[in-house]
């Protein structure tokens, strides 16, 4: 298994995440897509960490996972607030602010 195979995989996962954020309209799925992007980053970091033989990349990964958890917590709280107003989690229907 060469290094490139891992990098191809992480690039594919990252692209899927980006497409998910841009295309899907359900907030929860958008959040999952963002998580996918961050996991592609984690895979990248771990591969490079193995390549260089130091732990900096793995330390970075731990930080990314932690921050992603905190971020999702805040995001879900905002989603709940939206749901109380509109009874929906579809971001296309949350559109009182325009231009």
């Amino acid at each position, binding site marked *: 298994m060469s290094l490139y195979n891992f990098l191809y995989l992480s690039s594919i996962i*990252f692209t899927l995440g980006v497409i998910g954020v841009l295309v899907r309209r359900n907030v929860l799925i958008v959040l999952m897509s963002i998580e996918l992007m*961050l996991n592609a980053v984690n895979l990248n970091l771990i591969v*490079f960490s193995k390549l*260089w033989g130091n732990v900096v990349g793995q*330390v970075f990964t731990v930080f990314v996972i932690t*921050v992603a958890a905190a*971020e999702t917590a*805040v995001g879900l709280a*905002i989603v709940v607030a939206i749901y109380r107003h509109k009874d929906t989690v579809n971001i296309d229907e949350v559109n009182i602010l325009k*231009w």
Partner: protein
Amino acid sequence: MLGDSLKLVNNILGIKDIAAFSPQIQLLIWGIAILLLSVFVKDKKSRMNISFYFSLLGVFFSGWSYIKLLRLEGIYDGEGIKFFNGIFKLDGITIFFYGIFLLAGLLTILLSKRFLEEESTFESEYYSLLLLSIMAMMCMAGSNDLIGIYISLEFMSISIYVLVGYLRKQLRSTEGAIKYFILGAFSSGLLLFGMSFIYGMGGTTNLTQLFRILTGGKSAISEPLLVLSMLLILAGMGFKVAAVPFHMWCPDAYEGAPTPITAFMSVAPKAAGFVIFIRLFFSLFKTITYEYVSVLALLSIITMTVGNVIAVKQTNIKRLLAYSSISHAGFILMGLLARNEFALKSIGMYILCYLFMNIGAFAIVIVMRRKNIIGEELDDYKGLIHTHPVMASFMTVFLLSLAGIPPTAGFVAKYFVFSTVIKEFLKSGDRLLLYVAVVGAINAVIALYYYFRIVKRMFMGEPTKESEEKVAVNFYSGLSIGIAFFFTLFIGVYAEPFIRFADLIGNSFRSLF
């Protein structure tokens, strides 16, 4: 044995390192104290007042530690001092931006009291998160490591997502928050992906070491990958400073957020974003100057133009100021095109001037909120000169300054940015730089039009019946407007001491490498 390990601990986390963090630690302590207060003080009214004074104390003590830090030796000699094994660096840039963040925080806290009383919603988290986000920005200003940059960036962003959605009973506040949150999280994903490639090429996350490896001329560094990671980081940071085409969240979040938070967001996180721009782009991407200049020039041109053109059509003053802040980000990006000492100085000067004039303009919007009028539509400002002459003339000065008319701070700011670009053009002969300067000049004219739409309404319009109601300016918001007004005029008339303050950041150009 014990002595050895103690020594080790002392090396990693010495008392010196704690001293470097004292402004942040002060903010952290007071921020947590405000949170704890809500457990002990049950009465809402007194809790609101005590939290307000606590947050003022927090900024005051933090400023006091900041002034003590100024006397630390070795900050000004170009290299800066490194702390925490090189993760954090204290140099002129850090010191300068500490000042910016503390000032923005102080003005925002002063403005918040009346706003919260008027809205009659108060949770202790408001002031607490405000202090913590200032703390995160201070950490960001000094980060000399990709991990440090990422952590403090996220800390700041998460605090501000919550603050934008603070008025959770209003749909538009929540909507602003969800848009800001999704695009913010998306952009930090892009940023991280770029960072992971940088780490892959350099094998370390320390910026000083990365600079040596990436510009050392080794064949192992693949140029396309370097360009890719630059673009990813540029996109990620572009979202944070609201550069077009990454600006979609900006007007919505600005309109939805509580107005003092809008004032804060339009200055402090933007300034923090530009620190990261400086730290990453001035040093790491030195070998791909051509790609860097062309991408950034394009970004700067469309940011200025789109921001200004859309602002012309706005009828809500918060949205208008949001688009105006997008175009100001374009002007600051213009300063980033040249990567020399003078460019650093011009960015510092622009952010300093922008801080006073923009918070001043938002402060007037906050004060204009009365019982019957929200004071956010342009028509609410009709005939303001007859009903509130002082407010109207202050607002005129802030708008003149935002447009860049001579006896105000905005002119000094624009002067420095334009001369940076022209100087770089004369030196390198790159035509693109000239085009950027020309587009910038045209944009200054477009900006004049929409700022004067507000001025025209204030001076020529007839006041409506509701707008005759008197504005109650309390001492604190008056103080805040006074500070902003004083500095907006003072920098314009006598800029010398402020240019010397901005020299702090210009002189530490060498510490970037």
